[in-house]
């Protein structure tokens, strides 16, 4: 059996998921070890195991560990959101960044941070409202006797551009307050810790569960609307539910890491080149790989310019696309 058909079999796909999980855990462990303070593995284990209070424990437990966990979660959310959007819209270009979902969530988030800093605890719900409102707006704009995937993506690109302009305007006029906000538009994980994790995990959990339950429906949707209706699926309702899940995932990620691009577009494609487009496997594998990508890029961002650091969005934008293009050239890839 060739490698290609092995990867497309159920056991092969599960194997790839297992390997991706292993890679993610390795990346997290390596990332825990390196940084401005380098610790041998034994010390990491003993510090975290014994909870011995001290500078090592502080750095590991309160700075690195939550940041790495958050990186994995954020990457997983963006990638999962992208994989769902690509499936719902039957369009390889779809991703939270391109379809306007991130931009909508981002604008709502920026407004909350600048105009109503006292309500910062409502950041995620606000971003979700923004993301979902954008998704619904795009959906309605594309509606004309049902939604065509092409109209949907064009409407998304247009709305995304407009919302981006609004965000830039708001940022420009608040340049003095916008120090931390520059981070936001590039995508960064620095200074994120347990409070941010506590803030987003319930939303992420809902998003991940939704994706888990709707994955198989995405496969039926891929057969075409007419066939899906014939099989008794409430197509418009399922599409809307999937859009909501994608919006929730992207919004929770945007709320803590900002407008981190590329993961949502690239991670699902890379995974698809490996294991094909069966969404039952594609969704979890994309989530794992997205988490891996963000953890690796964030670690690099922390290491290359020590002691200062690059926000994760920059290594992502520098390394993601070339790697992606290399894969694209190597594989006979058709969507």
């Amino acid at each position: 059996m060739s490698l290609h058909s092995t990867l497309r079999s159920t056991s092969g796909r599960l194997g790839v998921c297992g390997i991706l999980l292993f890679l993610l855990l390795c990346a997290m462990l390596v990332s825990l070890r390196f940084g401005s303070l380098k610790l041998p593995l034994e010390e990491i284990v003993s510090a975290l195991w014994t909870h011995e209070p001290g500078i090592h424990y502080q750095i590991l437990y309160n700075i690195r560990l939550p940041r790495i966990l958050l990186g994995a979660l954020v990457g997983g959310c963006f990638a999962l959101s992208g994989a769902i959007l690509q499936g719902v819209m039957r369009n390889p270009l779809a991703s939270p960044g391109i379809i306007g979902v991130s931009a909508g969530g981002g604008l709502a988030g920026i407004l909350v941070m600048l105009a109503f800093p006292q309500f910062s605890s409502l950041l995620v719900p606000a971003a979700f409202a923004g993301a979902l409102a954008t998704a619904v707006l795009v959906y309605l704009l594309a509606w004309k006797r049902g939604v065509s995937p092409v109209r949907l993506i064009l409407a998304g690109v247009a709305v995304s551009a407009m919302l981006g302009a609004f965000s830039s305007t708001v940022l420009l006029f608040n340049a003095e307050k916008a120090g931390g906000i520059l981070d936001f538009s590039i995508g960064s994980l620095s200074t994120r810790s347990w409070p941010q994790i506590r803030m987003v995990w319930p939303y992420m959990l809902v998003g991940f569960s939704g994706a888990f339950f709707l994955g198989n429906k995405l496969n039926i949707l891929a057969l075409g609307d007419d066939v899906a209706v014939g099989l008794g699926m409430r197509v418009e309702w399922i599409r809307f539910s999937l859009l909501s899940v994608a919006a929730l995932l992207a919004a929770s990620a945007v709320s803590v890491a900002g407008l981190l691009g590329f993961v949502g577009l690239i991670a699902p494609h890379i995974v698809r080149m490996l294991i094909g487009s069966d969404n039952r496997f594609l969704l979890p594998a994309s989530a794992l790989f997205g988490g891996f990508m963000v953890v690796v890029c964030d670690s690099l961002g922390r290491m290359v310019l020590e002691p200062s650091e690059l926000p994760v969005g920059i290594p992502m934008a520098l390394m993601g696309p070339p790697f992606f293009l290399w894969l694209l050239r190597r594989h006979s890839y058709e969507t």
Partner: protein
Amino acid sequence: MKLEVNSLCGGYGGKLVLDGVEFTVRSGSIVTLLGANGCGKSTLLKIIGRILKPKSGSVLLDGKAISRIKTGDLARELAILPQLHHASGELSVEELVAFGRFPHRGLMPGATVRDREIIDRSIRMTRLESLRKRPLYTLSGGERQRAWVAMTLAQEPGVLLLDEPTTFLDVCCQFEIIDVVRRLNQQYGVTVVMVLHDLNLAASCSDELILMKNHKIHCAGTPASVITRENLRAVFEIESKITVSEEGIPYCIATGSARGEAL
């Protein structure tokens, strides 16, 4: 299952493609819709299959309006294979056929013993046993079409709607599809409504033919009563010779266009 279509009007946007269509399909019969391109056959089939909403009129399944049946419940009674269907080519035959069990699944994922039996039966009926693990992109056009038909069989429908199931297939593959339809009809009493373009194929396998012209039914009845020179000239604008076989099945040979003669 009995199917009734009552004064059905429908179309796309402001354009009326069906104008007051009415007919009844007896339970357990095979009915074929015939007509020139654009006469409304596919639209009619889509409305019967609730893919398209009618502008007025109703479709009754065993006396009950399909608009009042939940789409998921209806999918256990009625299956439709649209004309254009696409699937990710890497899907295997078995995986495609398994989608037919979707309307029968409860909340629990995974196939039950009965699901597996029906999937096996559908694959057997379409003679795809040796291809069941193969991805769709490795199949020929005829094999792929049989796989799609197998998916609709797995729905265990009482009524099966097929939109041009034999178009683009070679002669042998056409008969393979029609054979499956016939066996399904004879062994399980499934009512079949389909759109075909080949008049002779339609006449040989149908209990009743419906000829459509200009968004209306021109005539309907047994193949022998419908396939006449006058009807074919009126509907398809062709001149033809018609012979009738020993079994009473009409066979027509088109001899030329009848367009322009009226000028």
